[in-house]
C-alpha cells in the first residue's frame, strides 16, 4: 500500500445506522506537489468525503493516513479543508485579525487581496468573496501540507475565481503541497489539474462513476 501522500483507503461513512451510506468504499490519494480534481455535483457525498480526509469526521471503515501516519488527534492538522461557505468556518464573534491569528502566521494576505482595513472588522461585515479570501489566507501557512478545496469559488465571479486560484496554485507549487480540488465545473478542474500548475501528472476523478477505485478521467 502507498505510504506517501494523503491516502484515504476503503472509506465508508454514514451519519447513523438508519441512513444509507454517504461514502461507500472510496479510495483515493494525493501526493505532495500533486493537484487532484474530484468531479462531483451535490448529492454525491463529496463534502462528507472531504471531511473524512481532513479529520472532521472519522470513517466507520477504512483509514486516512498522511505520509503513513494517522491524522493527529490534537494540534494543527496538516490537512486543511476550505469550504464553499466561509461563514461556516469562522467564529462570527471574532474580528478578522483574531481569526487569522488562530492558526499559524498567514503569509499570503497581500497576494490574496486581504485588505488591511478588514482586520478590525467582524465576519458579517465582509462579503462572501472577501471572507473566502480570509479563510484561504488562514490555511496558506507552513504547517499545512495538504489542502482540500470543496467548491471554494463556486459562488464567485470568474475574475475573482481566477485571482484566488492563481494565488493558491502558485503557493501549492512553491511549497509542494498536495491539493484536492472538489467541484462540478469541468473546465475549472481541467484548468487546475491537467497540464496546469503542477509539473507532475495530474488527475481528475469522477465521483459519479460507479467504481470503488476512482479512475482518471482525462
Amino acid at each position, binding site marked *: 500500500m502507498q505510504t506517501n501522500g494523503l491516502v484515504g483507503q476503503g472509506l465508508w461513512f454514514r451519519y447513523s445506522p438508519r441512513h444509507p451510506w454517504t461514502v461507500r468504499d472510496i479510495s483515493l490519494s494525493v501526493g505532495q506537489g500533486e493537484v487532484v480534481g474530484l468531479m462531483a455535483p451535490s448529492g454525491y457525498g463529496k463534502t462528507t468525503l472531504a471531511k473524512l480526509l481532513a479529520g472532521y469526521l472519522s470513517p466507520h471503515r477504512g483509514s486516512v493516513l498522511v505520509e503513513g501516519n494517522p491524522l493527529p488527534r490534537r494540534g494543527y492538522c496538516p490537512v486543511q479543508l476550505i469550504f464553499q461557505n466561509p461563514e461556516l468556518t469562522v467564529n462570527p464573534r471574532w474580528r478578522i485579525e483574531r481569526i487569522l491569528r488562530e492558526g499559524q502566521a498567514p503569509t499570503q494576505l497581500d497576494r490574496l*487581496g486581504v485588505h488591511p482595513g478588514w482586520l478590525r472588522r467582524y465576519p458579517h461585515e465582509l*462579503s462572501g*468573496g472577501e471572507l473566502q479570501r480570509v479563510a484561504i489566507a488562514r490555511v496558506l501557512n507552513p504547517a499545512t501540507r495538504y489542502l482540500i478545496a470543496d467548491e471554494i469559488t463556486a459562488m464567485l465571479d470568474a475574475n475573482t475565481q*481566477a485571482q484566488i486560484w*492563481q494565488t493558491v496554485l502558485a503557493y501549492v507549487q512553491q511549497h509542494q503541497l498536495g491539493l484536492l480540488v472538489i467541484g462540478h465545473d469541468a473546465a475549472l478542474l481541467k484548468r487546475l489539474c491537467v497540464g496546469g500548475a503542477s509539473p507532475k501528472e495530474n488527475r481528475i476523478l469522477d465521483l459519479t462513476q460507479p467504481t470503488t477505485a476512482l479512475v482518471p478521467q482525462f
Partner: protein
Amino acid sequence: MLSIRQLGVSFTQYDQGLNQRQLTVITDLDLEVQAGEVVAVVGASGSGKSLLAHAVLGILPDNAQVTGSLRFKGQPLTPARCAQLRGQDIALIPQSVGYLDPLMKVGPQVRRVAQLGGLSKAAAQTAVGRTFNRYDLLPSTQGRYPFQISGGMARRVLVATAVVSQADLVIADEPTPGLHPEIATETLTHLRELADEGRGVMVITHDIEAALQIADRVAVFYAGTTVEIAAAADFPERLRHPYTQALWRSLPQNDFIPVPGHQPSPDQLPTGCLFSDRCPWFTPDCAAERPALRSVRGGLVRCIHAD
C-alpha cells in the same frame, strides 16, 4: 415589461462609535426586460445583483434608501404595488429548496402559490397536476416533503412554482451552482421556455457560460452599476467594456488570467468611473465623472473610451 432607470440603493450604517457610513450598493443602474426575452444579469460577486432582485420584488430592508425609477408594465413599482404583485405577476425562483417550507408537502405548497395567483382551489389543483406532469414530476412527488426530493427534482419544483403563479415576470436567482451539468442545462432550458411562452425572464447568475446558453441579452454588473448591456451574440468578440472583456478572459476555459485589484468599497466609491483603478485603458478623463450609459455598436456601455 420591466424598466429600471437610474436606480440607486444605499444604506446608512452605524458602527460602534456611532460613526455614520453611507454604503452605496447600487448606482445609476439601468435595465429593461421585455416580454418574451431572457435577460441575464452577470458580473462581479458583491456587485449588487441580488439586491436588484430584492428591489424589484420590494423586499429590500427598511433602512434602504432607493432613488431612480422602477416601472412594471408602465406603472411605477411602489412598495405597496410590489407587495401586491409579488408572487402573482412577479415571481422569484430562489436559489434552493431551502426557500420552500420544510414542514409542508410539496404539492399543497405549490397549490397555495397558484391560489395566491388567483385560481380557485380546484383550478389550482388542476394547474399543479398539469405543471408537475409538464416537468416530469410524478404525481407522488406532491406528497413528499422538500427534504425528500433530489436536487434535480427540487429545481423542477421551483420552476413549476413560478409557472403556476402565472407571473409575467420571472426572476431566477443563481439557478445553476452545484448542479449536475445535465440538470443545470435542463433548468436553463425550462427558463428559456418560460420566455418563449411570452413571459419576461431575468436570470441572475455569476456563470457567464450558463447565461449565454439561454439569454437574449446580458447585463454586466460591476460595483452596483450596469457597465454593459450586450446581445448574447456579442460574446466574446464584440464586447465593449474592458471589465466584460476581462471577465471573459478570466474564465478557466479561456485565459484564466484575472485583472488585479478589487471592486471599490461601497463606502468609498470614486467620483469617476467605478472601474478606473483597475482599467487598462484608464486616462485622467475617466476620473472626472461617472461615464453615462451610451450606445455603441447596438449595445449599451458605461465607458468613455469604448468604441
